[in-house]
């Protein structure tokens, strides 16, 4: 008897397995988002440095990360670097590293944008009332820059969550791989399984990313003076 195609999602623990698979990509995204939030802020501050060499160095790093597709970076780290350096890197750790490097670069650029968009008189007034450099950053620049930064940083986070779907291509068992396994198991009795499974994964990503981007849009309109 031909079953309803959609029933493939509810057989056994299929739906649970998909969500579990998704949690692997989310875990990679979470690790790299946390890492890039911290390192990105440092990079962003370095990018506004007085010293040309420091600025150019950061710029070079950013452009190098940006110009090569993330998938290629994943391949470079997982297949090539490990071969040259003769050590083993698990696919998940390689993904963590690549996404952290990428996130740091993008976050750094956002931070730089937020800092340089600050009117110069803000800093000058700070110095004029005798604040030290650290105090100017702590009490004047950072609080204002944060407001400009947070909506776009959240946007970056959803981009990172979406991009972690690529890790399946270097062999991390995440939601897409689990989906393929489910399809392969049920292909004989349920020929339309792939439609429902991939459709389901599509909506799982949407359910995760949509509220986050909605939140960022809300913050943006709220903080726009």
């Amino acid at each position, binding site marked *: 008897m031909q079953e309803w195609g959609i029933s493939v999602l509810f057989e056994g623990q299929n739906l649970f397995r998909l969500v579990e698979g998704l949690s692997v990509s989310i875990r990679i995204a979470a690790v790299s988002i946390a890492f890039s939030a911290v390192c990105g802020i440092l990079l962003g501050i370095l990018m506004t440095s007085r010293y040309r060499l420091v600025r150019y160095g950061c710029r070079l790093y950013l452009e190098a990360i940006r110009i090569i597709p993330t998938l290629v970076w994943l391949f470079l780290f997982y297949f*090539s670097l490990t071969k040259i350096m003769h050590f083993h890197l698990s696919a998940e750790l390689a993904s963590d590293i690549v996404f952290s490097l990428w996130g740091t670069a993008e976050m750094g650029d956002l931070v730089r944008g937020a800092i340089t968009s600050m009117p110069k008189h803000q800093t000058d007034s700070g110095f004029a009332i005798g604040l030290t450099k650290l105090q100017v950053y702590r009490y004047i620049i950072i609080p204002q820059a944060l407001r400009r930064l947070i909506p776009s940083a959240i946007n970056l986070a959803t981009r990172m969550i979406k991009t972690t779907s690529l890790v399946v291509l270097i062999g991390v068992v995440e939601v897409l791989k689990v989906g393929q396994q489910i399809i392969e198991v049920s292909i004989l009795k349920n020929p339309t399984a792939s439609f429902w499974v991939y459709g389901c994964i599509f909506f799982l990503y949407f359910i995760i990313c949509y509220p986050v981007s909605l939140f960022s849009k809300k913050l943006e309109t709220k903080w726009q003076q």
Partner: protein
Amino acid sequence: MDFNFMSASIPLYIKAAKMTLDLAAWGILSSLAIGFVCALIGYYKIKILDKIVQIYIELSRNTPLLIQLFFLYYGLAKMGIKLEAYTCAILGLAFLGGSYMSEAFRAGLEAVNKIQIESGLSIGLTRWQLTRYVILPQAFAVAVPAIGANAIFLLKETSVVSAIALADLMFVAKDLIGMYYKTTEALVLLVFSYLILLLPISIFLTYIERRVRHAGVGN
């Protein structure tokens, strides 16, 4: 590194680069068209259509290209809609890029000062003339950097189509690694191929960006 192997593989990469460029060109052109129409629908708040556009944009922006491609290529095939990998790739890129381009155009349209529109109306331009001669030229100038950034983004995203067995740059590199186990050589060539494709575009864009930085009349 095995340089003989590398120089022998270069023709393969050139062929694949053509495929990448071909996909990117069609993807960028169709997403420009989709984005332009969607942005205008959103800007003029055309009833019903603008709700559909909104749903489309949210769906497209909040899901990854890889999943969209798998759904188009493997999912739809089982429901009787069999598309070739090439068609799927362009559809996927257009679906993804359309929303990004739409936001770029939208930002450009919103940047057109209200005074411009009112002045146009007061000298008796029709709605069409107003759009054609006043709004669009200014909106384009503002939107150009974002459009350029999206074009680069789409060109880079084409690397994902190797997952549905299209012979683009990424695919050739994977193939060479699988066949000869020359991992480093294949990937170095891959990196250089992307650099050769993307660097000129990126430099050109920086130049264009500088030219249009002062766009936007009456702000």
